[in-house]
């Protein structure tokens, strides 16, 4: 059954929407950077929630390009992973406000994985 954020390309596309970087092909953020942020988010999730990787026997999937490869990640935590990706991308910006927003987004993902009733949209901005 198809769901939101099923594939690597879905994550990249949705991240661009929230980063306001939808006009290509000369994007502000390279696709490979967003894909790498996805990989880092999955690694963070593996550290916090090994139960999300039972079917892969604990192995964290790795992606090296934007394509239609499925991202095996629990549906209810996908929005949080997307927020993590955006936060990771925004870390590169030097402005203080962006740093705060980036940290908030990534902390929201961590909190969502480890604590109940967290508003993953509380990323500020």
């Amino acid at each position, binding site marked *: 059954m198809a769901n939101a954020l099923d594939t690597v390309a879905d994550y990249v596309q949705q991240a661009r929407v929230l980063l306001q970087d939808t006009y290509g092909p000369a994007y502000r953020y390279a696709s490979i950077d967003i894909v790498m942020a996805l990989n880092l988010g999955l690694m963070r999730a593996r550290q916090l929630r090994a139960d999300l990787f039972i*079917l892969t026997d604990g192995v964290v999937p790795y992606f090296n390009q934007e394509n239609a490869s499925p991202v095996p990640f629990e549906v209810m935590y996908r929005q949080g992973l997307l927020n993590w990706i955006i936060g990771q991308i925004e870390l590169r910006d030097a402005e203080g406000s962006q740093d705060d927003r980036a940290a908030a987004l990534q902390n929201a993902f961590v909190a969502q994985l480890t604590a109940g009733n967290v508003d993953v949209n509380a990323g500020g901005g």
Partner: protein
Amino acid sequence: MDYITRIMANARTRLTGVVDDALRMGLFEAVDEFCRETDIWQEDIAFDTVTYTPDLVYDLVPTEGTILRLIALKVTGQTGSLNGTMRVPGELKISSMLNADVNVTATVSLSPIDPVEVGSEFPVIDAWIWQRHFTALTDGLIMKMASQVDKPYTSGTLVEYHGRRFRNAIGVARADNIKANLADGQAWQFPDFAAQRNSSTQVT
């Protein structure tokens, strides 16, 4: 809605953010513990004896599950008990001297095999156990999940509440099993130190 579906649905509603893969693992642990502590899942395994030798071992193979304990050992169709031991689960040694070709029935208790090994999503046990004990298994599952650290559903309160219910249910199931689910049956049993035993551990 079957009982496994009901247990999973109950657990999902009580455990915010829990994933089904983890629930399936937790359910196996709960069912396994329930079976191990109650001996409620049993099977009679009949076989023919061969010529007696002191170290003769009979390998018992249940239809499903893995053997826990030897509950009873009898000549098939008779009431008297035989002497036997099963130091390694499934490897039966009969102490009683029997002729060859005597049909013997060993009653053993079972626990489920890891569902992954048998190609199932859920533990395979007798259907009546799901039906009769689904509330206990739900309590056991929630207790085990809520006791995991740093999860959205980590809760000492849930562990205490459902853990107590699970332990109570195990005690009731164990007693019901001893009474063969007989209503108003003997509600007590001799403590271990008062039980009658002989040196060769006669099982009845």
